[in-house]
């Protein structure tokens, strides 16, 4: 019994990580249709933000909380820069965007290598995040995973509120649903695109901060997660946050339960197979945006 509970907790926390890394994508890919392969490098930028910040703020706890908004801004600005310089020219060519941003990600990785060195760098986690909450002897909930779960849920809530109740959110949704109509209604679609990209990329930065608590901080950390993140958004469905949320937690739980009874490799392959099979059933993802297009 405790095994199932602790595996469920692990699964949910894997889901939370997936959700965090995919949340930004569900905006840029899901809402705008931009396939940004450099999203992983924005995550990396967020993680390196913690590293650099800890040179200034030596207290691990403070530095983590300062890093959250700072990483959001750093990654967000990188995203805007990318949008203005390259992606804006490619809205009509989504597949080419994929290749161009892959090139950008290669360059960013090598930049990180040249600036910070090829080896992984080390950040310190605050003590209150390296401990755990003991429920029974066998069942412990680790604080860092609880923290990431909270962070992911907070990000979802904030994003939902922003999209649903603010004027910016209304404009974003208007542009997604009908770009031309939004434009003739007086919405500056270019500015909305940049803002959406800022928020989406910024969320990648936040995910990077969270990942410093779990894994290595190095030039290739982004590549390791990017495909998973895309699969979450693809399976979740374009234009819907709730699709990504459900799929992230479902995949996380599936992964952890299968992994417990088999091996990591089998679990990973099974997750891929599950997604392909799922897309056979629902080619547009879990939730589809109703449009009048023929697709």
């Amino acid at each position, binding site marked *: 019994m405790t*095994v199932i509970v*602790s*595996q469920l907790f*692990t699964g949910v*926390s*894997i889901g939370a*990580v997936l959700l965090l890394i995919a949340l930004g994508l569900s905006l840029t890919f899901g809402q705008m249709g931009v396939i940004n392969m450099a999203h992983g490098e924005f995550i990396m930028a967020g993680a390196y933000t913690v590293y650099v910040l800890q040179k200034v703020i030596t207290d691990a706890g403070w530095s983590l909380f300062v890093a959250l908004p700072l990483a959001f801004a750093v990654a967000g600005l990188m995203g805007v820069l990318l949008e203005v310089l390259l992606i804006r020219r490619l809205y009509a060519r989504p597949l080419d965007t994929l290749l161009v941003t892959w090139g950008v990600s290669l360059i960013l990785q090598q930049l990180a*290598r040249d600036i910070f060195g*090829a*080896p*992984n*760098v*080390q*950040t*310190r*986690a605050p003590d209150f995040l*390296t*401990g*755990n909450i*003991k429920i029974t002897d*066998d069942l*412990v909930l*680790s*604080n*860092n*995973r609880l923290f990431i779960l909270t962070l992911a849920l907070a990000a979802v809530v904030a994003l939902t509120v922003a999209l649903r109740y603010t004027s910016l959110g209304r404009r974003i949704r208007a542009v997604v649903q009908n770009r031309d109509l939004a434009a003739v209604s007086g919405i500056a679609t270019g500015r909305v695109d940049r803002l959406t990209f800022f928020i989406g990329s910024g969320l990648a930065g936040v995910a990077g901060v969270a990942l410093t*608590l*779990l*894994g*290595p*901080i*190095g030039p*290739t*950390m982004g590549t*390791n997660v990017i495909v998973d993140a895309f699969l979450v958004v693809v399976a979740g469905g374009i234009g819907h946050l709730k699709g990504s949320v459900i799929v992230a937690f479902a995949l996380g739980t599936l*992964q*952890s339960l299968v*992994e*417990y009874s088999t*091996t*990591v*490799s089998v679990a*990973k392959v099974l997750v891929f197979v599950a997604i392909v099979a799922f897309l056979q059933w629902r080619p547009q993802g879990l939730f589809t945006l109703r449009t009048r297009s023929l697709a």
Partner: protein
Amino acid sequence: MLDIRGRWKGALLPLAAILALSACGSKTGENESVGGAVADTSGDTVKVGLLNSLSGTMAISEVTVRDSIKLAVEEINASGGVLGKKIEPISEDGASDWPTFAEKAEKLIREDKVAAVFGCWTSASRKAVKPVFEENKALLFYPVQYEGLEQSPYIFYTGATTNQQIVPGLEYLKSQGKTSVYLVGSDYVFPRTANKIIKAYVQANGMTVLGEEYAPLGSTEFGTIVNKVKASKASAVFNTLNGDSNVAFFKEYKSAGLTAASMPVVSVSIAEEEVKSIGTQYLDGQLTAWNYYQTTPGAANDKFVKAYKAKYGQDKPTSDPMEAAYVSVYLWKAMVEKAGGFEVDKVKAASDGVTFDAPEGLVTVDGATQHIYKTARIGKVGPDGLITEVWNSGQPVKPDPYLKGYPWAAGLS
């Protein structure tokens, strides 16, 4: 609508050429004199090849190895070179890609005509270049601990084989009264072979293996594996994870409330450099099995550490593979001097019994296996990020890549 003849003529021509040519060439086993590139040692320098990943995922580790080979080359050149010739190192990038390793090895041997090549890290890269060296009858010095079960006539293995690292690690655990182990490793040759050996040892010594888990290389999600380790209540963990995975594993390990005191982890791929990138916060008190640490006492090591830091920076630690690479250059020099020439056959023939006062202590080449006698050392990670020795084998252990001298390992190879 198309002129068929025009279109196919071009394609038929080469096919005819192939048929004509395929009649030439020797069949397998027909011709023994094939291959054998000759090193060019006519000038007043002698070229050696440095084959390491300078880019890609393995660059992290392999650049440090390249640096320490260069250090050895410089030292040797400063003291007069080898047989009066200065060493001219030619560095090639294996780019963490095994076919590239094979390609560059071929280039070093055939185009640059080097006298010997130093490098490779992963077993996969060694397996990829092995046929190249055997075909060209050229020498490779391989400086990293590995899974054993190999003995190429054209490779000298200056890192530990299993009976100089893994077996001592197990013996140490046994001497500490540990009765059960959990095996965690990355999914590739070294961990799988190592774990096969561990299981045989454990079975023969009245201990138990409570589980065996493999994570794909580069995997950074260890929630489930650590849950399994924790639930097993093993008395120790034997860790053969590689690279990035170690960082994620130890962060998870600590969060789950496991410590070096409650369930120590013995790692065989974590040296000083890796400690730095994982963080002592997570590694304090954990165990490692190697043949050399930066803290190993002795004048030879003091000199090595000092020279390395002077050249590459005070914050750069020295580690076992770097030391083994450094030693390999000196061993090659000693072999060449004993042989009185650079010819591969002569160098091989002269290799048996060649010794060097290495930073890790005295090492001796075993001509029969082309491995070297090394002292096994178990270390503990300290809060300062350095590893201090808690046990050693007392004397250099004879290399035994096929574990022929261990009755419990009879069924392994």
